[in-house]
């Protein structure tokens, strides 16, 4: 079986090939959901909405994609920007996301069961305490295997800035989690 690269699939989508679209969704749905789930502090419903929106946005902008530009950073950049926009709007609407999460937790929906583990809750809280810019960099680098260059493209900052965000974020995380060697 021939394995097409993300970029080749994007080219296929530009030409209207539905199979390429399916392959791309199958390849990236789960990692993107994981990324957005962690970015939203474990809000599964919100993460699902954002993943769907990410793919919809990608498809609507597919004509602006230029082969062989790497697709993965572009996809994650859309996801990051959508998350930022969501929180900006939530701030504007004076919505308290923590309250929203708490409400979800109280209702005990299946997705929030993932948050019930003490360790998971602690990790989510520690990540949530980080500034979003550091959180994004850490998640992309260590849980989603993006290279420094790819993260620099996603976040539209120089590689040096990515490195400093990673360093600051990890130190802060270490303190919060009280991790010892």
């Amino acid at each position: 079986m021939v394995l097409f690269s993300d970029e080749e699939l994007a080219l296929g989508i530009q030409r209207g090939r539905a199979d390429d679209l399916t392959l791309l969704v199958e390849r990236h749905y789960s990692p993107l959901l994981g990324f957005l789930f962690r970015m939203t502090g474990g809000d599964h419903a919100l993460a699902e909405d954002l993943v769907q929106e990410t793919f919809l946005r990608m498809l609507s902008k597919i004509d602006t994609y230029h082969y062989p530009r790497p697709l993965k950073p572009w996809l994650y950049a859309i996801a990051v920007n959508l998350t930022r926009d969501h929180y900006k709007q939530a701030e504007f609407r004076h919505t308290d996301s923590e309250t929203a999460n708490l409400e979800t937790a109280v209702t005990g929906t299946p997705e929030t069961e993932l948050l019930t583990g003490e360790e998971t809750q602690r990790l989510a809280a520690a990540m949530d305490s980080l500034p979003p810019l550091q959180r994004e960099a850490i998640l992309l680098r260590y849980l989603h295997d993006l290279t420094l260059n790819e993260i620099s493209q996603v976040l539209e900052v120089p590689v040096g800035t990515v490195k400093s965000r990673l360093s600051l974020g990890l130190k802060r995380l270490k303190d919060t989690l009280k991790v010892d060697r």
Partner: protein
Amino acid sequence: MKDQDLLARLSEDLGSPEEAAELTPVIRRLENWKAPAPAAEDTLRLTGTLYRLLKVHRKNTLSYRLHLGWLVLRSQPRVVQSELWTASAIVLALGTLVTLAYSHTGGLNVTLPFVLIAPVAAAGGIAFLYGSSLDPALEIELTTPISPRQVLFARLVLVFGFDLLFGLAGSAILSLLRVDISFLPLVSAWLAPMTFLASLAFLLMTMTLDSILNQLICLGLWILQNSTRLVPGIRWPFPFPDLTAAAARPWLWLVAVLLFSIALWLGGGEEHWMRKRA
């Protein structure tokens, strides 16, 4: 990820192996934060929505539009009256024959019969392009998703293209058989007037849907315009601009584009055709 790999990555990021070793346990703990797997119904819902969007996207691509244009074009010869092709071909063939027999002293191509006949043949064809009494397929076409503008444009391209081909063929024959006629000057002598007269016929057709009246107007205008050339010594109280003159050609192209555009704009709405038929 293996410890060694993680350490190497952290060292690359932080620039210090000591710091990397110190922060490795943080990443190890972070890896415990498991994310949920996507639900099958969510993935299905998404792919369903994306397929619908992709269909819309396909419809917006140039290749799809060209394909659609080709399909519309291919469907039209069956609808356009068959006599129209024969009539245009005969008129242009006669024009070629008359010009072959015409004693031409050389010089201006504009005096050749072919230059006078080609525009009239094209205008005549366009005049019968569409019309309530001539087109039994009109009502069916109005119910299809293809806009009347596209149908109109396809017919125009077909009929004008047909006349253009015959015109070029006639000019080629004339330039081959007569040493005093050159191909390019001959084509440039009839092409601009032919486009102008065809555009006028096209506009009149969308406005009146009366093919006979339309043809009479075009023919009348062309005869009047060339009357001083056809009947030497004739004098009119007002001067007609010489549409076959080389200086008039840029203006003829400009006016033709304008008339074509107005006609397509007018004929683009279904309401226009329904009102005309009522």
